[in-house]
């Protein structure tokens, strides 16, 4: 969750891109458009209220004090009171409106992006590192949350205030306004542009280093057992200090960039007072402006400089939110390569699962992981896939269950191309039990139920009984409600494997694709599990990627995969008689258990 987001080029948006991002967001905000209009209206009103203060002061000064008229003064005071009261309620309203729309927008964005993410193919998850994907859903969306909570309102408000103040000043005295603008605009204009450029670079730098630093921190914490086991604490600490100090350096640089700018804003703010006093005084002497105007200008100056300062501070927030949105939209635009057909068909409830001359290469690899393989599994038949490590067994299993689509060739179930089938009906017919079991934070019960969310507690218990593991877990103080902790670290290695095997015992598909894990179980427990899986396999088609001789022997047919090709297929006896790859493999297996079998010798 804390891994560095992918930064760099994609963070820098050009103007056209920003426009596109904005238009897209407007579409996304459609459901909340009424609230948004309200918010905009309220922001305008509240800005007007902010401006009304100095105007009323001017009125009081010129018409009340200037012409010895106590009534005008009282009117100004009463008007001011009214404005303050209105401003309070308008202010409340604008916070509520903007947050209601904003949080709704973010909530929808979270749900939509996540659904889109889950719809992506396995290849997508291979291509994109977990840390980056997680940061899309967290850091990127949160940076927008920040904008909505603080920035958006200030951004709009500050912009409006700036413009309206200028209009108001011009109406009061165009000469004074012109002078202020002629002085302020070039100084602040040039400075702001430089500042934005520098601070953007500094900000990106800080963000990247924060990412690296957090990754190192996380690696240190997750790897703490290995670090301690080898006594490398001091070394890791030394390395961490290097990245941590680099981050400190970037922070300092970014402060340096902003420091001169804020000094300059402060300077020009007071300089403008000096100018107004000097030039305004001159104009008062000539009778072309009233004293109240000069006073109002001095008070209005704050309305000119505060927004400028706010806008430049907000610039980074806006910029990073736009960049985040851009990345999110890129994720949402990525069409899943294993997508559902626009007019999907239901798969027949039973049928033969056949691979027709499939070839497949993983993204970014040239050598195909599977080359021209054809294989059919009849209803009720059990086929074992065997072969050395990296031969392509798991790959074939993944193609058969459409986790990937073949580069060429195709897969059918009951004579229907699986690419035409609805994904829901495919997952009902074909279930894959992956090689690596993954435990989620939560209880043992939750972890098993993921295989069939509708399963009752009794179903889960029955699955555990089937693999002979119920008693073992019930003996834990909290039984099946034991929290397994991150990645299941509360359990022993074998216990973790039992939990993920129980998942397989819970499902009920027509075709079961079982990618057998290399075992952490003691052979005694394993034998019990094997019997359970045996029961599970009867009555359905099974494709089992086998790492154990016993599993292989129970198969109806054995397919030997070697170097991405199907090299032999047949029954155990046929293949033994052939004396080819399978014979060699079976002998290696047998040798790995030499002591048990005295006849095999050593």
């Amino acid at each position, binding site marked *: 969750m804390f891994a560095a987001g992918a930064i760099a080029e994609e963070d820098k948006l050009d103007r056209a891109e920003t426009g596109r991002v904005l238009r897209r967001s407007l579409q996304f905000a459609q459901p909340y458009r009424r609230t948004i209009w309200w918010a905009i209206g309220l922001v305008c009103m509240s800005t007007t209220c902010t401006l009304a203060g100095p105007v009323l002061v001017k009125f009081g000064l010129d018409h009340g004090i200037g012409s010895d008229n106590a009534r005008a003064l009282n009117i100004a005071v009463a008007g001011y009171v009214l404005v303050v009261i209105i401003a309070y309620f308008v202010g409340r309203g604008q916070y509520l409106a903007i947050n209601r729309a904003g949080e709704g927008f973010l909530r929808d964005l979270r749900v939509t992006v996540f659904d889109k993410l889950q719809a992506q193919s396995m290849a997508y998850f291979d291509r994109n590192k977990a840390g980056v994907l997680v940061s899309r859903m967290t850091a990127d969306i949160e940076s927008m949350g920040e904008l909505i909570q603080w920035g958006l309102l200030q951004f709009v408000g500050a912009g409006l205030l700036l413009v309206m103040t200028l209009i108001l000043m011009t109406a009061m005295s165009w000469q004074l306004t012109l002078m202020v603008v002629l002085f302020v605009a070039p100084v602040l204009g040039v400075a702001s542009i430089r500042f934005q450029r520098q601070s953007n670079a500094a900000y990106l730098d800080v963000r990247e280093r924060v990412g690296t630093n957090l990754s190192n921190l996380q690696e240190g914490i*997750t790897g703490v057992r290995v670090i*301690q086991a080898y006594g490398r604490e001091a070394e890791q600490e030394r390395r961490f200090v290097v990245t*941590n100090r680099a981050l400190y350096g970037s922070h300092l640089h970014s402060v340096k960039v902003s420091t001169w700018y804020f*000094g300059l804003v402060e300077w020009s703010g007071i300089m403008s007072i000096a100018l107004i006093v000097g030039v305004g005084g001159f104009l008062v002497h000539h009778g072309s402006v009233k004293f109240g105007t000069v006073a109002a200008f001095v008070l209005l100056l704050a309305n000119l400089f505060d927004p400028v300062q706010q806008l430049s501070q907000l610039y980074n927030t806006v910029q990073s939110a736009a960049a985040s949105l851009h990345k999110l939209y890129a994720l949402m635009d990525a069409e899943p390569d294993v997508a559902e057909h626009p007019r999907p068909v239901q798969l027949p409830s039973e049928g033969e699962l056949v691979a027709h001359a499939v070839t497949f290469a993983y993204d970014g690899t040239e050598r195909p992981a599977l080359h021209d393989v054809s294989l059919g599994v009849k209803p009720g038949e059990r086929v074992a896939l065997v072969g050395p490590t990296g031969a392509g067994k798991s790959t074939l299993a993944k193609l058969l269950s459409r986790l990937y689509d073949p580069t060429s060739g195709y897969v059918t179930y009951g004579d229907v191309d699986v690419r035409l089938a609805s994904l829901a009906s495919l997952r009902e017919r074909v279930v*894959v039990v992956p090689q690596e079991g993954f435990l989620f934070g939560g209880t043992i019960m939750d972890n098993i139920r993921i295989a069939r969310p509708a399963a009752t507690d009794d179903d889960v218990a029955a699955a555990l009984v089937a693999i002979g593991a119920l008693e073992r877990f019930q003996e834990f103080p909290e039984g099946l409600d034991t929290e397994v902790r991150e990645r299941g670290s509360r359990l022993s290695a074998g216990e973790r494997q039992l939990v993920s095997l129980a998942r397989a015992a819970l499902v009920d598909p027509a075709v079961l694709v079982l990618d057998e894990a*290399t075992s952490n179980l003691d052979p005694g427990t394993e034998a019990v599990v094997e019997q359970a899986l045996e029961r599970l396999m009867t009555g359905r088609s099974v494709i089992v990627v086998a790492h154990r001789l016993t599993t292989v022997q129970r198969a109806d047919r054995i397919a030997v995969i070697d170097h991405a090709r199907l090299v032999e297929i047949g029954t155990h006896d046929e293949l033994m008689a052939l004396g080819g790859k399978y014979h060699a493999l079976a002998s290696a297996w047998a040798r*790995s258990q030499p002591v048990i079998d005295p006849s095999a010798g050593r």
Partner: protein
Amino acid sequence: MVKRSGRASSTPGAGGWALLRAVLAEQKFGLIAGMAVGLAWSAGKVTVPKLTSLAVDRAILGNGSLAFWASLIAVMAFIAGIFTAWRRWFAFRESRLTETKLREQLFAHVLRLHVGYHDHTQTGQLMSRASSDLLQIQGFVVMIPITASNLAMVMAIVVILFVQQPMLALIALAPLPFLNVLATRFSRRIHPAVLAVQQEQAQLATVVEESVSGVRVIKGFGAHEVTANRLRKEADDIRTVSLDAARVRSSFLPALDLLPNLGLLAVLAIGGHRVLNGSMTRGQMLEFMQYIGLLIFPLRNLGMTVAFGQRAAAALLRVNEVLTTAPAVADPKAPVTLPEGGAVGAVRFEHVTFGYSADSPVLREFDLTIPAGASVALVGGTGGGKSTVARLLIRFYDVQSGCIQLDGVDVRDLSLRVLRQEVSVVFEDTFLFHDSVGANIAFARPDAPQADVEAAARLAGAHDFILELPDGYGTVIGERGYSLSGGQRQRIALARAIVANPRVLVLDDATSAVDPSKEHEIREAMRTVMDGRTTIVIAHRPGTIALADTVVLLDDGGVAATGTHEQLLATNERYRVVLAALAADDDVEEAVS
């Protein structure tokens, strides 16, 4: 290096501030400099309204020199501009330094905390100690020099106003303390809301992280709905708590914005009449209004500082709690040295009792003696406590009773560094670092020559596939690097232990993911590694068990039987059950015949 906060304080709150004081004491020069330039800034800033007022009365409405007064104000512009920049610089520099140092202190301490602590602490929690909590502390430290100068300015303005028009000053300033009160109350109310938002965000992050890392399981079982529902719930929760926070903001922030206006109003109403009476000049009135304008930000800031202070106090508490947790497994006061020379590596477990929670022991009165240089296979059922034996030997946990000795010395009397140098465990789940293959193998001895690294890789059966990787030994692996298969990862972990060249080597199921045909080769190499070195092999496969001279059967928390594999197979019923010997026997015979 690390300052382990040994100062146990009576109340935890005091401990948090003591921690901050200790860190800030090292930075006192920077902080004092920040306050000094801050004072210069407030002096410049405070003079401006006074000058404006004088300019109005003497030059605009009177007949003094406009240019003179205007240039005086311009001088103040330079002073305020330069010193505000400096103040900012010092404030941020010092606060970032505090954050940086505290993070290093935290990291160093967490690395040394006992494994039992890490079992019960989520990675995410420690991460947020070192990131968001430290940010809150940083946010407070920034305020220290800024608040000091703001305070000076507020006091100066109050004095100036009172000296001129005590009554008007009293009325005009009356609403301003409320600003402070309101700001303080606001932050007290908003804090829990913000915390709730952060918590919900962390929960959502966990759902996403697990859905991405466990995507194979989710896709395999078609369980998208489960995770999608979880996510929807978290997204809804975030919206709910965020709106709660927005509600708090909406009732406080507009009030905070508007309160100062009451002061302006008072000046306009009362001051206006006074000007009409002639008891006050117009310049003074403008001055009053400007001063009140000047007060707005500093006063709001004071409120924020109080708020930030409270938040920082909570964060400091949490950070201090980690820093004051003493590692339960630590170096002894006077470490004993291990005997050198001769046959070394004798291991002895004596009446060892241990459980992860006190009431359910995993090992009971466990006794095991392994002579120097001997090898033992530890066999037992799933969850029987085999890995626990390995963890106890390197003191990941301390025994509850009994003792463990290495070469006749209680492991608790050895320095951890020495113990862990001399005993290497290859764990059942492999953790590799985001670094090159070579650096991962040389982890225990970063200065090991390349020849040693390659020799170890050869022995572990890893050399060949490493050469086929894109950059050979320079290929970067780990979470963000090149992905290796389970068997390949195990072999690198094995090489890592071989490079360490320990007296005692523990292999916890270290070849379970290695292909049987390859395992054979590794086993041959392992004989070289094990030659003359005490080795404990935890294994399920008979072929691996056969590497050891003796087999120890771990059952029911103790040693159930000892002997050679054949002896146990022949005499021990439980051993046959654990190895499923009866079933396997027939299968294998049938298979190769």
